[in-house]
């Protein structure tokens, strides 16, 4: 809800954000009219100036669906507040997300590591929403998103305002060091581009960036298995010849995508389950271990195997994809 402004409005009527803005704009307008009318006869009024003023002031109202300030990575709390019911419906009615193991996640900044699927980052946004609902807005993990997606026209402004951040070491480190959680999807493009027959087969975890980050910051890594997201966007096959023209790394063909146009970007209503594993405290090994390439790759592979095992358990536990 909007914060109350006691004492500001003696009549006590509608102190909420947009209305207050409207009141302010109208009051300013009437002041403007009075100042222009005073001392002149009706013919002398600058009607064009007045019209311009009205236009300027109404245009200011375009600010009401966004906050005037964003955080340092461009997250817009006002948009998140407005999008909350949508995410709520998406999680509860559409994907019917089952969450388990969230209690074991430690307080404070953590590094969530999850399996990735689908071209659009529904998995990251849903994960962020679920953690934010359970632990409060300060605990909201920021999903790390690949370059090609965070610079994609139309996706870029929305994703940034919903809290997504370009996946790179500098950004993740900055977020973690300022006490915020991060959700990483180390499969990267390989994960996003999995075709349907490869679903839930975790791809290589990059070059161990996540493990290195855990070692350097000393923060716990929480493995997360997201089951269901990989059926929400089943990629039947990929068209690579078209990719350059569209500006995507590949053009996915799903049962809905090119056929239904933009509607095809909507996910299928698969039943999701998100399980949080036990935190892995690699920080105990010490920051100096990042130079030990073998250790990093061993930890990296172990992390991948853990998430793979959790994904397999989750798939066995469910009764069907959509039920």
């Amino acid at each position, binding site marked *: 809800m909007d914060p109350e402004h006691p004492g500001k409005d003696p009549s006590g009527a509608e102190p909420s954000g947009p209305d207050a803005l409207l009141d302010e704009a109208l009051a300013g307008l009437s002041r403007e009219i009075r100042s222009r009318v005073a001392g002149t006869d009706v013919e002398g009024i600058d009607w064009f100036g007045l019209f311009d003023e009205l236009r300027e002031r109404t245009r200011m109202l375009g600010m009401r669906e966004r906050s005037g*300030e*964003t955080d340092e990575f461009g997250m817009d709390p006002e948009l998140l507040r407005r999008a909350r019911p949508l995410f709520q419906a998406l999680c509860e009615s559409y994907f019917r997300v089952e969450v388990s193991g969230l209690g074991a996640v430690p307080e404070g900044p953590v590094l969530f590591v999850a399996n990735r699927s689908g071209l659009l980052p529904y998995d990251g946004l849903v994960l962020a929403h679920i953690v934010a609902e359970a632990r409060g807005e300060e605990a909201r993990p920021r999903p790390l998103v690949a370059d090609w997606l965070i610079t*994609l*026209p*139309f*996706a870029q*402004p929305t994703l*940034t305002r919903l809290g997504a951040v*370009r996946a790179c070491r500098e950004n993740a480190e900055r977020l973690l060091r300022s006490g915020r959680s991060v959700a990483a999807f180390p499969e990267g493009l390989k994960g996003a581009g999995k075709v349907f027959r490869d679903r839930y087969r975790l791809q290589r975890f990059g070059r161990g960036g996540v493990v290195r980050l855990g070692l350097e910051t000393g923060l716990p890594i929480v493995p997360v298995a997201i089951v269901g997201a990989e059926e929400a966007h089943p990629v039947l096959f990929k068209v690579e010849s078209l990719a350059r023209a569209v500006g995507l790394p590949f053009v996915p063909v799903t049962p809905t995508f090119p056929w239904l146009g933009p509607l095809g970007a909507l996910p299928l209503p698969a039943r999701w389950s998100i399980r949080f594993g036990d935190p892995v405290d690699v920080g105990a090994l010490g920051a100096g271990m990042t130079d030990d390439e073998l250790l990093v790759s061993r930890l990296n592979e172990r992390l991948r195997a853990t998430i793979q095992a959790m994904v397999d358990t989750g798939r066995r536990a469910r009764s069907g994809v959509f039920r």
Partner: protein
Amino acid sequence: MPTRAPRRIAITGLRTFLGGRLAERLSSIGPDVHVLGLDLRKPWGLPSSVAFHEIDLTHPTADATLADLLRKEEIEAVVHLAFRREPTADIDADHELETVGSLHLFAACQAAGVRRVVLGSTTMVYGAWPDNPNYLTEDHPLRGHPHAHNVANRVEVEALAADFARRNPDRRVTVLRPCWIMGPTHMDAVVRYFSRSVVPTLLGHDPLLQFVHEDDCLRAFERAVRGPRSGTFNVVGRDVLPLSTILRTAGKRTLPVPAPLLYRLRYYPSHAQTGDRPEGFYDYLRYLWVADGSRGFEVLGEPRYSTREAWMSFVSSRALRQYR
């Protein structure tokens, strides 16, 4: 190494916004500070406390002339600001002034034994690239932009400054990289872009931007000239704002243009006069190139204006002028 603040200061590019205002600011410190302004022509309304000397940095013997002058005037610090306020269509002339002029200046400083050199650069030298991290630190490589010739010149000048610092480890070289400057009086190509009533933007792109207020920028330059520390610093305001929010707070109308279309218009009217393709400017409204100012805040002082306040200061001054 004496740490006394320099008292005899030369400023190149006196007719630029930063040059002129910095000369006024430094000369008003006190009677013991002597400021020598250098430019092609004497600017109108120059305060009497600022001495002026005419010099053409692009002249083939400018380095020797300048070295003689610096020696004769016993200059202790040089602030180099002789750069185009905005790119012109004559790319070769811009290169002569910005790069070759800087080459002459560094040669003269070397010969005249100037203790301290402050170079005015810009955060645009990092370049707007899709793989930039959200915050660029001073150690990030300077990638510039292939279609912005003035940015390319500045990258070359930074290399000259780094070279000068390496050859003269006993002298202090400070490079300041301000982001886009906003304020009631500053004017350049960027400010002109933002002061249009209909602002063209790229359809589907809404990057985070940052501004620094002109007063904060000038204060940073003053501290860099007079203060004890040297190095490379980003000069930025606090916070960032998305382009769309910036334009909406000012109540401006936008004209979103698809990037492939805009980039095909090679002679887009307002860009023919810069000599560059539209990418040279519009990529900076497409990708992230926000700089991390924390090192500068620590050494040169906290800015008094945030990005939003700098922008509002510009907008309110403009509105007053528009409506009288």
